[in-house]
């Protein structure tokens, strides 16, 4: 059923995440696991719930099965509601509709969904980032500024700034200029891809953009610049917390490592609970020969060996004499006796055979080796060596096995 809502969220979750290689071979980027028991999309969804937003349209496109199944009726986030809740919005066939051609087109194709709730404001989110943020504070600011559009920004270093969309603002945070990946950035305020729009303006710009054949139907490339050119009141909303794009193997690994340490850079443990679809699994069992140092471990793991600086998801089994260091082991991974895993990401339900060596130790030069990535549901044979930075999926494992004999 529908009733008027002040604000609803549209979550763009169609991204392929091609730079995550084998990790997104079978599922979309927002469904990529993070931090022991979460998936990337848990962060924006939980943020919505804590921000009082109870209508979330989740726009899917690439490999949606796992993501659709994961979101289900929204129950894990308390978003299974009579009036609202989480709704998966896949592309559909209609007279004019088609695949989502860009972020703006994806929202355009779902304007009828937005209309049902007659919201005053729409928050546009992406399912690519790890952060905890109160969207209601941003909305308050948006209303106070009498803005048409607010864009969340985070300060990045000047060197990094050329990788982001950069907002140049006046002293009141009103956006004067937007530059996509500028060679010579004039500010360090990087767009986080989080927008709040007044619904009526959003609709009119989306409709106009749709009619423009030269547009690539993208918020950053088209909608935002067009609105700025038209002189609309647009404001930057400064965010100071932890925020990471986990679109690459390196950034995904680094963000996981941010959960470790004496005082973790990103603390999951707070009143701002990140909800996720958890199954009831027994507690973790730490065995006789386990030695654990600076790691996070979760339900149903059975640990019998040395674990250092690592993130272990549920139901991971590590047999005696194995060594896990600086690595991320996803759900259901088994590491057999004597295997060594260092600087690696191992996707779910893969078995690392006895004595196999994955990744590489940190060398004498102190430089971190490239992260080795092993895909899901694989059987890495005993004794096999997989070097730093190698990306292993079913095909490449088979090829490797043949050459090794």
């Amino acid at each position, binding site marked *: 059923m529908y009733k008027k809502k002040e604000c609803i969220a549209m979550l763009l979750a169609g991204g392929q995440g091609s730079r995550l290689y084998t990790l997104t071979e079978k599922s979309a980027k927002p469904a990529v696991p993070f*931090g*022991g*028991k979460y998936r990337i999309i848990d962060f924006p969804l939980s943020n919505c719930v804590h921000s009082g937003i109870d209508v979330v349209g989740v726009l899917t496109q690439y490999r949606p099965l796992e993501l659709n199944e994961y979101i289900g009726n929204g*129950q*894990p986030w308390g978003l299974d509601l009579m009036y609202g809740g989480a709704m998966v919005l896949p592309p559909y066939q209609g007279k004019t509709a088609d695949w989502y051609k860009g972020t703006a087109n994806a929202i355009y194709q779902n304007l009828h969904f937005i209309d049902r709730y007659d919201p005053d404001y729409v928050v546009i989110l992406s399912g690519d980032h790890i952060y905890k943020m109160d969207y209601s504070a941003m909305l308050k600011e948006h209303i106070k500024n009498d803005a048409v559009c607010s864009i969340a920004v985070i300060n990045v270093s000047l060197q990094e700034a050329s990788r982001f969309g950069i907002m140049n603002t006046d002293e009141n945070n009103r956006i004067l200029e937007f530059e996509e990946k500028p060679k010579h950035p004039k500010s360090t305020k990087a767009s986080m891809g989080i927008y709040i729009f007044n619904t009526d303006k959003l609709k009119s710009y989306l409709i106009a953009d749709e009619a423009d054949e030269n547009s690539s139907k993208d918020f950053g490339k088209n909608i935002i610049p067009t609105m700025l050119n038209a002189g609309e009141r647009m404001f930057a909303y400064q965010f100071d917390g932890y925020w990471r794009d986990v679109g690459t193997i390196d950034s995904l690994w680094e963000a996981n490592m941010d959960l*470790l340490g*004496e005082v*973790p850079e990103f603390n*999951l*443990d707070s009143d701002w*609970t*990140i*909800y*996720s679809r*958890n*199954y*009831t*699994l*027994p*507690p*973790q*069992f*730490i*065995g*006789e020969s*386990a*030695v*654990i*140092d*600076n*790691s*996070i*471990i*979760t*339900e149903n793991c059975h640990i019998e060996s040395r*674990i250092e600086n690592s*993130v*272990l998801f549920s139901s991971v089994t590590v047999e005696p004499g194995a060594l896990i260091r600086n690595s991320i082991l996803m759900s259901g991974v088994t590491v057999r006796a004597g295997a060594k895993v260092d600087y690696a990401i191992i996707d779910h339900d893969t078995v690392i055979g006895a004595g196999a060596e994955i990744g590489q130790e940190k060398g004498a030069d102190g430089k971190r080796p490239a992260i080795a990535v092993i895909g899901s549901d694989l059987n890495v044979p005993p004794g096999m060596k997989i070097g730093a930075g190698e990306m292993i999926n079913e095909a490449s494992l088979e090829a490797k096995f043949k050459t090794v004999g």
Partner: protein
Amino acid sequence: MSAAGIIFSNLHEAHITELTKVRTMAAVPFMARYRLVDFPLSNMINSGITNVSVITHYNYHSLMNHIGSGKDWDLARRNGGIQILPPFITAYANNSNSLYSTRLEALCSINHSISNIKDDFIVLCDCDCICNIDIKEILEEHEEKKADLTVVVQKKNVTDEERAKFTIIEADADGHITDAFTNSGMTSGEKHVSLNIMVITRQFMSNMLADTMAHSYKSFTYDIIGRYKGSRNFRIHEFNGHYSAVDSFVGYFNQSMKILRTESIREEIFGNKNRPIFTRIRNSVPTRYKTGCIVRNSFIADGCIIEGTVENSILARNVKIGKNAVVRNSILFRNTTVGEYAELDYVLSDKNATIRDGRHLSGCDALPYFIDKGMNL
């Protein structure tokens, strides 16, 4: 064949007053992340029973809090699902409100609810039945043998001291119950003891309850099994898996430690993929093992932060173990905080307890040191 379930939440609370002072037996925490009611509930769900009543009479706040809508057990359903049945107390009863004290009285007190059950069979289970049992198999046998009552039993060597704790069931070679007694002068030795899990045919149940009310019967063992055993088809079903009930505080402690120590029991109870033990989902963060921690042979829930040493222990959610603290042979309930350099050996701490820096507390296997809920030592 369809069955409904009834779980008794309060029957044995006097056995373990330390933990039931503030909560009903069903809500007593167990093995780091569970509460006792999770075991009978999960056994019922895993056997296809999706209409379950939990009958309780006091201290049931933590039970209601735990169960919520029943979502986490897949028991938030249009047809059936879970309902908690607190006492039916009315202001206009001329002081005739009374709380049940026996199983039979408990059933009579929810007669109005039982009379709405449409299923052919009713499974009765106490809340302290720690096991992973296939009730479907028992139901099938019950139906096949056209039984009115099937009592699940286990062979046990009953000593003289223990005799009072058990209901002993005697049966012939064919499985027909010939006698049932508690605390009798019969010689001790290997006996079939009731596991307090039973299947009753609904029709017999309603006759039995009508008779009970008409004659003010009190005891299931004497008045029902004893009086009807000749005329009705009462049977036993032997269960050979791991089973433990909570018979005392020390018993609770030792049962927990036994499960912790024995991989085959952990595997039997928690390792069956098709028969999981369900519990409330709390979205705790993964447990953090900080540099300097030493952890061995322990069963640990999510949300803990461990900096010290933990050996042979069971840690519930959000337990914090400070630097250089040593915890051995202990069971720490949710939100227990152990300060730096504190040492615990054979300790059971209830929820929200705080053990300050440098405290040394020690019990022994025959008498673990108990720290009350919320205490600050």
